[in-house]
């Protein structure tokens, strides 16, 4: 069993306030990095390894072949910043194991100007693992930047579900750089939830899919005044019969959202669908949906749908005709808008995402 992580009370409180689950009974392992320091990474467990990335590189010689394999260090100015002086986690599900209880991995930005992170996640052949990553900044941190490199390796027939819930603050700039290599028959599910204020989030994670592999990206974005979110998901269907679904829900209440999506079909019988929906709640702010499909092979099936609008008055009236007040109706519709049906998403994760939405629900409509 894992042990309770020792954290300063105010750090623990903030993490718990934003929904991080730190009690050892509910997680198979937990990891917390505060600024550049890996505060705690838990010990060996039977089916899953969790440790600081530096420790892992020392321990496993083979890991150097994985670091910077999916993401290139010279990709942009931010990846370059994270080449030296980084920390982060290494999580690995051992072959043919099913890690039933999720792993929690948290990043906490407290005082540094730039938090630099490099994570490597390996789901070994035939394994199954769920990772929940919560990121938060210390209340009152006026400005800061989080640069996070995450490289996912989903081996043959493995299934990796990664759910990231961000809880930054109005002064924080966030530049995750993620990529996944999904081997034959593997499944990669990536969920992203951003409901709290942030100055800027900019990312465009990419999954490279081999034969019969599947990727599902989903994102739920709520952008308030002063927040800018430029977020996309990209799937490169390189292997025969691979498939991808990209789903996004963006709400602007004064903030700006660029919702990108890009599916590239490069092999026979690949299938990809992009669904991008936006809801405008304010006269300020914007949502710009940019769905892209790219075929490099004749026998592909790629499609997309994008729609942006405001809350329909007839829907509000309908709910009011059942006795809901205007505010209750509006909030129910916004809540409903954020419900995404994600295939293969375990129930507890659905609840986890619902919990994140509930925590900000009162602020959504009003």
């Amino acid at each position, binding site marked *: 069993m894992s042990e309770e992580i020792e954290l300063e009370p105010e750090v623990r409180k903030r993490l718990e306030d934003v929904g991080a689950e730190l009690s050892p009974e509910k997680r198979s392992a937990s990891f917390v990095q505060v600024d550049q320091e890996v505060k705690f990474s838990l010990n060996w467990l039977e089916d899953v390894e969790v440790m600081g990335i530096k420790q892992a590189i020392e321990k496993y010689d083979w890991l150097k072949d994985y670091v910077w394999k999916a993401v290139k260090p010279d990709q942009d100015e931010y990846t370059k910043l994270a080449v030296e002086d980084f920390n982060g986690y290494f999580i690995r599900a051992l072959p043919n194991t099913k890690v039933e209880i999720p792993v929690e991995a948290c990043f906490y930005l407290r005082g540094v100007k730039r938090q630099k992170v490099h994570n490597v996640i390996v789901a070994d052949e035939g394994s199954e693992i769920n990772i929940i990553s919560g990121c938060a900044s210390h209340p009152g941190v006026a400005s800061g930047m989080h640069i996070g490199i995450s490289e996912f390796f989903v081996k043959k027939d493995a299934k990796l579900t990664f759910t990231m819930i961000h809880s930054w603050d109005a002064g924080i700039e966030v530049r995750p750089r993620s990529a996944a290599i999904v081997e034959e028959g593997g499944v990669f599910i990536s969920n992203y939830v951003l409901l709290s204020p942030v100055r800027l989030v900019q990312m465009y994670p990419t999954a490279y899919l081999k034969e019969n592999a599947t990727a599902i990206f989903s994102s739920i974005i709520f952008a308030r005044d002063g927040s800018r979110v430029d977020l996309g998901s990209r799937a490169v269907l390189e292997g025969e019969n691979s498939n991808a679904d990209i789903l996004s829900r963006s709400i602007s209440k004064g903030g700006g959202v660029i919702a990108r999506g890009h599916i590239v079909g490069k092999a026979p019988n690949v299938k990809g669908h992009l669904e991008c929906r936006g809801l405008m709640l304010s006269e300020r702010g914007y949502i710009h949906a940019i769905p892209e499909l790219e075929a490099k092979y004749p026998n592909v099936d790629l499609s997309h749908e994008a729609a942006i609008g405001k809350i*329909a*008055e*007839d*829907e509000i*009236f*309908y*709910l*009011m*005709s*059942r*006795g*809901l*007040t*205007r505010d*209750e*109706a509006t909030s*129910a*519709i916004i*809540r*409903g*808008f*954020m*419900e995404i049906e994600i295939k293969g998403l375990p129930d507890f994760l659905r609840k986890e995402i619902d919990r994140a939405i509930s925590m900000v629900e009162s602020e959504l409509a009003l």
Partner: protein
Amino acid sequence: MDVLRVVNLGIEVSGKKILQNVNLYIQQGQTFVLFGPNGSGKSSLLSAIVGHPSYRIYDGRIMFKGKDITNLSTDERIRMGMGIAFQNPPRVSGVKLIDILKHCARISGQSEEKVYEYAEMLNMVDMLNRNINSGFSGGEIKRSELLQLLVLNPDFIMLDEPDSGVDLENISIVGDAMRELLERDKPAEKRNKAGLIITHTGHILKYVDADYGVVLYKGRIACIGNPYDILEHVAKYGYEGCVKKCLRKLNSNRK
């Protein structure tokens, strides 16, 4: 006691007058059937009574249970005991039928068991976790509307074409639900519910023995009388013929 009093009501939508000088009094225990050709203003009248914001009242007023509700919001009217089943309700994505039923049960104070009991009665148990009206067939929409009303348990019930699109297999279920809502299986003196039902074809009268029929014609009430007589006249002479006959009768009564 009059549950509903519609007094000299005039309604306009986007500046266009669609109802004029409408007077309608409905007492506790009474069920009215509202006839009229397409575009005569039947649905508009129901929308105005329930307070749809697009239907502006330019004249007259609406009294409900003795209180002037002309300026109340829709949800306030519902909480006073009104209920409506729409003909074409919108989809609300992400909002499940069960979520709405739970809201309705909170307002009426009915138990959760009752929700499932009614869902069973209307053959809707499998639909409870579906997004409301999303991918529902015509008949499922009607049954879902009636289910919501049964849970809401209003004192005054408006039904807009509750039987259209319902298949033969479910028509008796829908009829039972309407009678239950309007307490039509109780003896007349024990009925507390009142209703106003829109029908196009009059088939509803086979399931609900309404007390009065009203013909709405070109935005005005042209005739009030026995619903079966009205239906017969419309079938024989069409709406125009029926209205003329009715007006003659009204005029001769006045003399």
